[in-house]
């Protein structure tokens, strides 16, 4: 039996059988987000199966926070996440001549390092 209620399974043998998932019959999948220190971003670390959000959080605690440092967790029902279709990936493609839109194109660190280098030994910042 699948734990994922979003997936209906074909019951072989009885072509007329109506597939119906009863409320509470299957558990939901929850995505887990882990926060390493206060103020830090919650980062996606995996998922748990649980009957409700509270149990998901309880499971997530031992699942994802018993070794690694953790101060808080989020759980979100996987089904509540809206995502683009895989085949629409082409939407994200940047044209070659637009690299100026790419943040990594700004060579800020180089300038900072150059500045640091040039001011080294000449000025003491108090």
């Amino acid at each position, binding site marked *: 039996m699948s*734990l994922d209620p979003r997936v209906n399974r074909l019951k072989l043998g009885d072509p007329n059988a109506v597939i119906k998932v009863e409320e509470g019959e299957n558990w939901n999948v929850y995505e887990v987000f882990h926060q390493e220190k206060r103020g830090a971003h919650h980062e996606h670390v995996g998922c*748990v*199966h649980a009957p409700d959000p*509270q149990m998901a959080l*309880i*499971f997530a*605690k*031992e699942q994802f926070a*018993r070794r690694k440092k953790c101060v808080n967790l989020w759980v979100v029902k996987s089904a509540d996440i809206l995502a683009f279709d895989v085949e629409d990936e082409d939407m994200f493609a940047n044209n070659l001549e637009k690299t100026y839109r790419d943040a990594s194109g700004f060579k800020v660190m180089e300038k900072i390092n150059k500045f640091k280098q040039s001011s080294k030994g000449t000025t003491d910042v108090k």
Partner: protein
Amino acid sequence: MLNNAITDLMTKMADDELIQGHRNSEWTGLGPVMEEDIAFSSMAQDKIGHSWALYRIIEENLGGRQADLFAFCRPENEYKCCHLVEYPNSGYDFSLMRHFLFDQAEAVRYESMLESSFEPLQQLSRKVKGELKYHTLHANAWVMQLSKAGEESYDRMQTALNEIIALAAGIFEPGKAHEQVLIDAKVYPGEKELYNRWLDRIYPVLVKASLNLPALESITPAYGGRNGQHTPYLAPLLKEMGEVFNLDTAANW
């Protein structure tokens, strides 16, 4: 006199946690779902960790035997655990209800020791506070979840509660002469007081879960464990638990 009384109290607590931890660890690999298997096993380890911390205090502060030897090499009648923790895991309903009743009792006990006049116990109580918060949260959530998961599930939880309540009341077996010494010295508030605090703690959860707490006047608490009289389930457990350790008690790990 006071040190003997403290040793007595801490041995009871440590033995409860060691045996309960061992029992709960028997679910490892057999839990109902993977997430729960991991959570339950992890809490079983916490319990054994608590017992180890208590045995260490007995060894270091109260002149007791070396912790591992004390934990594994006593004759059965020198163990002071209550009968509740000795019972085999008949099913997950039984184990969860026991987890709920035992961990709430444990939480109440450690909380009362946050103000203990015996410093090492006070420190330990602060240290385990977070773990116990999780254990009771886990227990409460399961009790409520399963009590609302249909007729069969509800019946099983109520049956488990009916079966276990007298055993759980046995946690608070009166400590005879030692207990008054401990109360007077403000080491802890005594079993009767903890029993009442425990009832105040479990009652609201049971009400939320629509479970009926059996009439407490009608139950006979399972006493005896604190004096070394045990159920037939303890001896085989001790044998299995100490099997490897007893091959060579002086071995270095």
